[in-house]
């Protein structure tokens, strides 16, 4: 028991060191712009198809399933408003984060831990490249930038999916659909969505890099790292979601 607590404390200490090192290396030159752009391509661009498909299905299915309960009140005309609130306030950042945890988190975890196991990280270090800057900082920056982009993309596609679901049964022009959608969401909602996405993006990048970079040596370490990267990312994202919801509940009335 004492040993367990001790290990936990040691883990926190090393997490804290990793975090401090991240911010220190982030602000000190040289900056790895080229590699950041390459990583944005890797984590962002390559996730567009999957994110797009997921967004479409979420929007389409959510709308389809919500219709009957609104129909009971004869209120199907509220569908666009309902969809917009659901997607912008809740679904878009969360779904993006979960998909990205699975796809990007496992990729980063496996990549870094296999580089660690095969001493590629050591090799980089002895040949005059700071591996922390080159591997960790670039990936965390890339996920922090690209997850929000993916989040806006998933929101747009999700809304579009909702629209398609609606016009399956009702007459509604795209223009009036989007007028109703934006009628219901305020600036604070968009802001909250972006904030969530940024926090989630940082979390996924950081957790996966931490786990991959510090994985145990040995080939079984690679699979374990990929797996823990996904689990840890998702777990922390959920906790953050809970906290952010509480925070927004306090802030929103103050602003509007």
């Amino acid at each position, binding site marked *: 028991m004492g040993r367990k607590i001790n290990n936990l404390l040691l883990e926190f200490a090393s997490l804290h060191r990793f975090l401090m090192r991240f911010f220190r290396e982030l602000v000190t030159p040289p900056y790895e712009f080229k590699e950041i752009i390459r990583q944005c391509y890797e984590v962002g661009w390559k996730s567009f198809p999957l994110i797009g498909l997921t967004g479409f299905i979420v929007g389409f299915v959510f709308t389809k399933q919500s219709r009957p309960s609104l129909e009971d009140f004869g209120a199907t005309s509220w569908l666009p408003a309902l969809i917009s609130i659901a997607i912008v306030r809740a679904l878009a950042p969360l779904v993006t984060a979960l998909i990205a945890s699975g796809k990007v988190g496992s990729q980063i975890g496996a990549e870094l831990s296999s580089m660690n196991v*095969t001493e590629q990280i*050591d090799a980089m270090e002895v*040949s005059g490249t700071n591996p922390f800057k080159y591997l960790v900082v670039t990936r965390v920056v890339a996920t922090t930038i690209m997850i929000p982009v993916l989040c806006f993309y998933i929101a747009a596609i999700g809304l579009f999916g909702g629209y398609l679901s609606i016009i399956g049964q009702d007459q509604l022009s795209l223009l009036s659909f989007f007028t109703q959608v934006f009628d219901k969401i305020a600036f604070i909602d968009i802001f909250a969505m972006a904030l969530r996405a940024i926090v989630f993006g940082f979390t996924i990048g950081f957790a996966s890099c931490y786990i991959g970079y510090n994985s145990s040596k040995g080939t079984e370490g690679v699979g374990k790292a990929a797996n823990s990267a996904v689990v840890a990312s998702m777990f922390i994202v959920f906790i953050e979601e809970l906290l952010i919801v509480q925070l927004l509940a306090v802030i929103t009335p103050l602003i509007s």
Partner: protein
Amino acid sequence: MEKIQNRIIYDDAVISVDKLSKSFGDRQILRDVDLKLYRGENLVVLGRSGTGKSVLIKLISGLLKPDSGTINVLGEVVNELKERDLMKLRLKIGFSFQNSALYDSMTVRENLEFPLVRNKRNLTRAEINREVEDVLEGVGLLQAINQMPSELSGGQKKRIGIARTLILRPDIMLYDEPTAGLDPITCLDINTLINEVQERYQTSSIIITHDLACAKMVGDRMVMLLDGKFERQGTFAEIFDTDDDRVKPFYDYNFIV
């Protein structure tokens, strides 16, 4: 196959290790180790698996931190250097890893370019290409330039790994088991390569091995790591002129059995 005599300057130590100790947990790997590498010399470090040979050169290149003792490389104390100065010093030390450690997401060309592009930013494209082709030619693998590491054999990977460290023209080379797991002919190639590097670039090298043929072929001087200390050192003949049963089996296995 005797090696040709090189110019070794015995009053100029490029690496000098003093009273170096290193433990992992409660296992002491190195205890008060002293070691000198002289300019122009090929020093062979012998020792059984798990005695801490790899740990020793990782300490020398600053990948690990010692518990106590000093490591002086080219006049600088590695274990006291700031990150930035350590980076600079490392460019003068080539490190050939036990498992080659090629970047497996890059082609052979990109592997070799990596240290070059990142440390000498003023080179032109043509100069980079020439350097890369030069070194690859030196290790006899120019034809593999566009292949991925996963398409290469173990011996080829070793040679590419050595080429990648040579591209920065280091003063010191650290070879971690350059011949482990290779067939005798490839071993011969690698040993010849190590000797060529010594002659052509005037490097001083530490070669870690438990392959005595390799030791005999490339080493000017040898030390043997026994129980965390260098208890025996000298020429090949001197090392094995003993009845110590921690040493004799090494020789017997290679040359008598």
